[in-house]
């Protein structure tokens, strides 16, 4: 495992189509949420919950985003601890990149990559159990 603080371009080179897909998805979720809140008619934005009736591991992120927008970070963290923490870490990394023009790079061997992936999946399972028990 090697950690590098390497020089990179200030703006990440994300493909435009991916930015467009994320924008389209966020616009659709925002549209459904705004319409359902304005009218009082409930509408489900999660495909997994609609099909199975159970919340998915990322359930609560819309409510967490709304809580973060109201400057309530602890409430946002309570909705989905893993993904709110990951989002905060990604936001901090992006801020560092834009300010310093450098990024932390973690170079892992294939074996280390598999261990990291397994650890992430274990955390995801724990987060899912938390969401099912306390968020719903």
């Amino acid at each position, binding site marked *: 495992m090697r950690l590098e603080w390497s020089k990179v371009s200030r703006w990440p080179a994300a*493909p435009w189509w991916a930015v467009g897909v994320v924008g389209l*998805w966020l616009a*659709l979720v925002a549209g*459904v949420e705004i319409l359902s809140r304005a009218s009082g008619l409930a509408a489900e934005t999660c495909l997994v919950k609609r099909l199975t009736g159970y919340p*998915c591991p990322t359930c609560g*992120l819309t409510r967490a985003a709304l809580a973060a927008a109201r400057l309530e970070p602890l409430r946002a963290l309570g909705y989905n601890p893993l993904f709110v923490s990951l989002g905060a870490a990604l936001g901090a990394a992006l801020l560092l990149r834009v300010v310093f023009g450098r990024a932390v790079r973690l170079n892992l061997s294939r074996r280390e990559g598999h261990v990291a992936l397994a650890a992430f999946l274990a955390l995801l399972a724990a987060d899912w159990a938390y969401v099912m028990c306390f968020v719903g």
Partner: protein
Amino acid sequence: MTQLPPSAPGVPAATPTVKPHRGVMILVFGILGFVCCIIFSIVAWVMGNKDLAEMAAGRMDRSGEGLTKAGKICGIVGVALNIVFLVVTLLMWLFFSAAIFAKFSQM
């Protein structure tokens, strides 16, 4: 044009280093796109595209090409399913709210 000296007998010729593939991670992200958020599908699609280009250029281990392609396809399908679901939800909501509005305006 410079030529590399021939390697000594019994010593393997120097090969350019290639990055290890991330096929397993991309496939896992592609599958997570079905059971979690659309973001995993988009990440699997973007990483799959990038890594397949790296493999084609010879900078990444080609043994993970199948896994990478499978992960990318899962990502594309996950994105399509999620977007179609949201569009259908929005249209159904508009249809039902219009029907309710019409019913109450007749009363």
